[in-house]
């Protein structure tokens, strides 16, 4: 039988020039590391990519001070038009250096190059373009302040972002913060700091005034220092619900405001009248995109019982065509798990799923020997009381549950502490609209999943957090007034 082999088509690493070690980016300069440093590795090979400084409380303090100085002396005095010019410049530079960013993101994160190339980097640039346009139109974005004044910025923003979409999450924080007139201190995740550090170079190239953007690398302690710093006016956090709760506790009673975009256990609800072939694609994309390292992942498939067997059969057939392996290969669909810690978490919860009696299935495809890998996995026979139906796995693991009626679908979808995202698959428009209304989730997709756009607000309800990012709602969260 003839088969078309997809020969390895690796993207070249030549564009990426890594330093052996990186300092902190404070006041427009890379500051030589004084304290301890840590290694960031390529999760697909476990190769050490670079040494990165761990910012101490003093390092964070220096960054916040630089941001405050830049805010009072320069950035708050610029017109919106001028701020917009810088943002447009950054957006264009991101586009010009898109390939370099994509390769670096894939090296540091483990995600397939096609995803960093087609999703992460273009969307990051789009966020800068979108917010650049708002910079001189803030009065139209939110209701005017007291006496009809232009809405005022908050001051210094502390941004803390996760490792699943490193540059994109940076863009979600930096672009609206700067457009609204704030300055920022950003802490990238400890396993994926490199594109943020490359972004610092872009800020230099764009001649952004020193201190407007500051990057402090480090782990939990660095983030905690940033949250605790009295000079920070707002914390914008994306990450786990557990850390989000710590931040909310730390900020309770202080003058620092916060937006928290936390975990999720998204329900992807498939009715018996769904466009089936596209629904299968949506299920696959919903959970296996980005190795399932997506806060809004459709990790719970709720399928109408009358078509459950059919959907399961088609899903398994489709999974057989997924290619797991070298993230730099353009033919790879599923890349590496970001870290050993995360791999252990995923493997642990998968083990729990088996122990609790759900039926585990994967394609048994070969995995590379080096690096952190987990086969796309489907659990069938899952019920609401299984831990794999309740807890966020944050990996390529799908839990399949069934429902009988629309009301049961709603009840099961909402039976979770989370409320970030959900998907509905049906050809019946009235049902789609009714159901979207019933779901306790910040984002509901109809006959699609995982669609992102800078103009569309994104965020959760319940334990998936509060505040919105993107659109006018997202912008308002960086201005005094209604957003707070």
């Amino acid at each position, binding site marked *: 039988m*003839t088969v078309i082999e997809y020969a390895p088509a690796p993207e070249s690493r030549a564009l990426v020039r890594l330093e052996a070690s990186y300092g902190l980016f404070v006041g427009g300069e890379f500051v030589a590391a004084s304290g301890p440093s840590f290694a960031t590795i390529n999760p697909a090979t476990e190769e050490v990519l670079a040494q990165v400084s761990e910012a101490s409380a003093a390092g964070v303090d220096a960054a916040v001070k630089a941001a405050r100085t830049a805010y009072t002396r320069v950035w708050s005095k610029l017109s919106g038009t001028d701020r917009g010019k810088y943002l447009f410049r950054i957006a264009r530079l991101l586009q010009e250096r898109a390939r370099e960013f994509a390769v670096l993101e894939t090296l540091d994160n483990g995600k397939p190059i096609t995803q960093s190339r087609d999703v992460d980097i273009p969307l990051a640039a789009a966020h800068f373009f979108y917010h650049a346009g708002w910079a001189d139109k803030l009065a139209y974005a939110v209701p005017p302040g007291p006496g009809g004044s232009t809405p005022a910025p908050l001051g210094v923003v502390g941004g803390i972002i996760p490792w699943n979409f490193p540059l994109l999450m940076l863009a979600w924080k930096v672009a609206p913060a700067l457009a609204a007139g704030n300055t920022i201190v950003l802490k990238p995740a400890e396993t994926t700091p490199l594109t943020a550090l490359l972004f610092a170079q872009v800020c230099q190239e764009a001649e952004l005034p020193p201190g407007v953007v500051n990057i402090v690398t480090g782990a939990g302690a660095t983030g905690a220092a940033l949250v605790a710093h009295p000079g920070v006016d707002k914390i914008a956090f994306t990450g786990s619900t557990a850390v989000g709760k710590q931040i909310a506790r730390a900020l309770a009673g202080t003058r620092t405001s916060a937006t928290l975009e936390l975990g999720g256990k998204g329900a992807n609800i498939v009715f018996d009248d769904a466009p089936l072939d*596209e629904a299968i694609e949506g299920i696959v994309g919903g959970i296996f995109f980005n190795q399932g390292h997506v806060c809004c992942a459709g990790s719970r498939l709720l399928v109408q019982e009358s078509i459950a067997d059919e959907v399961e059969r088609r899903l398994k057939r489709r999974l057989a065509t997924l290619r797991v392996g070298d993230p730099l290969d353009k033919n790879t669909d599923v890349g590496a798990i970001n870290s050993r810690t995360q791999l252990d978490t995923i493997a642990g919860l998968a083990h729990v799923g088996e122990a609790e009696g759900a039926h585990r299935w994967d394609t048994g495809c070969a995995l590379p020997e080096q690096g952190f890998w987990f086969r796309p996995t489907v659990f069938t026979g899952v019920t609401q009381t299984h831990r794999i139906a309740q807890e966020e796995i944050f990996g390529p693991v799908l839990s399949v549950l069934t429902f009988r009626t629309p009301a049961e679908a709603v009840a099961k979808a909402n039976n979770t502490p989370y409320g970030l995202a959900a998907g509905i698959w049906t050809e019946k428009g009235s049902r789609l609209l009714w159901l979207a209304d019933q779901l306790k989730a910040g984002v509901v997709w109809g006959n699609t999943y995982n669609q992102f756009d800078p103009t569309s607000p994104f965020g959760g309800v319940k334990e998936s957090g509060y505040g919105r990012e993107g659109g006018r709602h997202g912008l308002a969260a960086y201005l005094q007034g209604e957003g707070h």
Partner: protein
Amino acid sequence: MSRTDLAAQTSASARDLLGVSRLTNAALTRWLHALPGVDQVGCEARAGALSTRSVKADSKRAAIDLAISMIDLTTLEGADTHNRVRGLAAKALRPDPTDPSTPRTAAVCVYGDMVATAKEALQGSDVKVAAVATAFPSGRASLAVKLVDTQDAVAAGADEIDMVIDRGAFLSGRYLDVFHQVARVKEAAGPARLKVIMETGELATYDNVRRASWLCLLAGADFIKTSTGKISPAATLPVTLVMLEAVRDWRDLTGTMAGVKPAGGIRTSKDAIRYLVAVQETAGADWLDNHWFRFGASSLLGDLLLQRQRLRDGVYSSVTYIADDSPSTAY
């Protein structure tokens, strides 16, 4: 089995499949309209994703040869002459005179009156002769004329018949008429394999493409084919994707395989390889054979040969090095 028995047999299988005692338009409508819908955005996104597969070096070489072997080299012009058809046949037999290892095309596709000429020119080879029939391209003629058109081409030696469905009947919901026409033409085609052109550019929606695909398969089509090449848009990747899903699901349901033929608008090697990737990842590798998948094209061959020469010689050639007795304007 006599000829009349075949159409009756097809109707009987259809009744069986639908679970009805009498095959009525209402029964066919219920069955076709119960097929899952196609979400346009999702379908086009999937086709786009399939287009990102990278096929290089040895795999590309193999894919190009496979694509050449799947071509129905076509000329369907009012100005066709016997000499032009002979030229096309010579091209099908020896696509690249500088390289005898080049595979032959699957077939030569001509109007019915050119079948004998094509047959003679291709004598002794495995290259098939396909004839368009049934008042191609519009299909606007009585069933009697369509049947005679078909029988005439088969009598002249056609190995394959490319018929058109009555799009007017389909669009006005007269599915039973379409069914009967296909079944009767299949009967009239006798031993020839029947490709059924749905003219997807006129069906307009993916839902219609899916329904027409199932209707044709139910009526006994050996192949479902997108287009006549006379209407724009002709073949597109999303339309072909929907048809590949149909033959895949048809085999799941009945155990019978049917072929798919996108025709028109596929001009480059890159395009052709995208289609082959879609075949492999949708219907499966079983369909990667010219018995089950064809390209209706003429200018595509030239680009496949250029790419083939480049892979052989390491440098880009030019069209002046592609021998072509009858450069076509058909597609």
